[in-house]
């Protein structure tokens, strides 16, 4: 268990650093997929295999492919030097991110969470579906949020088509 945790944490965090620091954009996308896979492994360790499946399907599958498509459409000659991929404010950015990470980790680590033990969440797919629809003893608000999520996905699909459509006057440019 501990070995799996250390391996997954190293995979997730090092791949996350790879996303930020790799010079090639395609490498960043592949590092991102590796980091998502690490998070999926954490979901399995946290007794949420359904979420791990969703994570692999949606993030490792769909989002990575979408990002790779975007990279292919917007490809330009790659930056040769490392400094060219960073903005001018990279030192303040590093300081801000370090401060945020230390602050969050400190606050979350010293907080007293009371009596905690693993294995409290809905493990079975059936419980998970009941949770998402707000059925049974689960809070009602999830039924509303579920429907709102469906509407958001529909609007996002239409918006993506409308925004990225090639207009006639742009063809003439």
């Amino acid at each position, binding site marked *: 268990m*501990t070995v799996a945790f250390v391996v997954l944490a190293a995979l997730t965090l090092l791949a996350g650093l790879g996303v930020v620091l790799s010079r090639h954009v395609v490498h960043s996308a592949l590092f991102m997929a590796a980091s998502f896979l690490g998070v999926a492994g954490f979901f399995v360790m946290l007794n949420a295999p359904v979420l791990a499946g969703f994570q692999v399907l949606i993030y490792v599958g769909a989002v990575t492919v979408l990002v790779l498509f975007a990279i292919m459409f917007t490809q330009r000659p790659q930056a040769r030097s490392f400094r060219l991929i960073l903005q001018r404010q990279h030192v303040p950015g590093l300081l801000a991110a370090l401060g945020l990470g230390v602050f969050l980790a400190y606050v*979350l680590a010293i907080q007293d969470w009371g009596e905690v033990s693993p294995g409290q969440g809905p493990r079975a797919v059936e419980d998970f579906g009941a949770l998402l629809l707000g059925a049974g003893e689960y809070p009602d608000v999830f039924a509303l949020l579920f429907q709102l*999520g469906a509407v958001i996905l529909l609007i996002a699909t239409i918006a993506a088509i409308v925004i990225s459509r090639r207009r006639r006057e742009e063809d003439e440019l």
Partner: protein
Amino acid sequence: MIPLEAYLVVGALLFAIGTYGALVRRNAVVVFMCVELMLNSVNLTLVSFADYLPGAMGAGAGYAILIIAVAAAEVAVGLAIVLAVFRARRTVNVDEINLMKR
């Protein structure tokens, strides 16, 4: 048994890495990837709360599903915007895109 704090610290560090990338990278597509990393770290935190806290009744897992749906919508619209900007400007570097008109 792995303590809850270990998962939370990993989530916090992943969030900080995503913040760093979103702040310092120039390529807009990479900025999107870093935002996805941040959303993933929040998902990790929520699911670990759902698994460890007895009073939560697994609500964190439900919120994680909603975050996944909203993140998918966000990445679809965001990459469409990046494509539209690239068509108009021939660049996706966020420090060169500083005008909203053409």
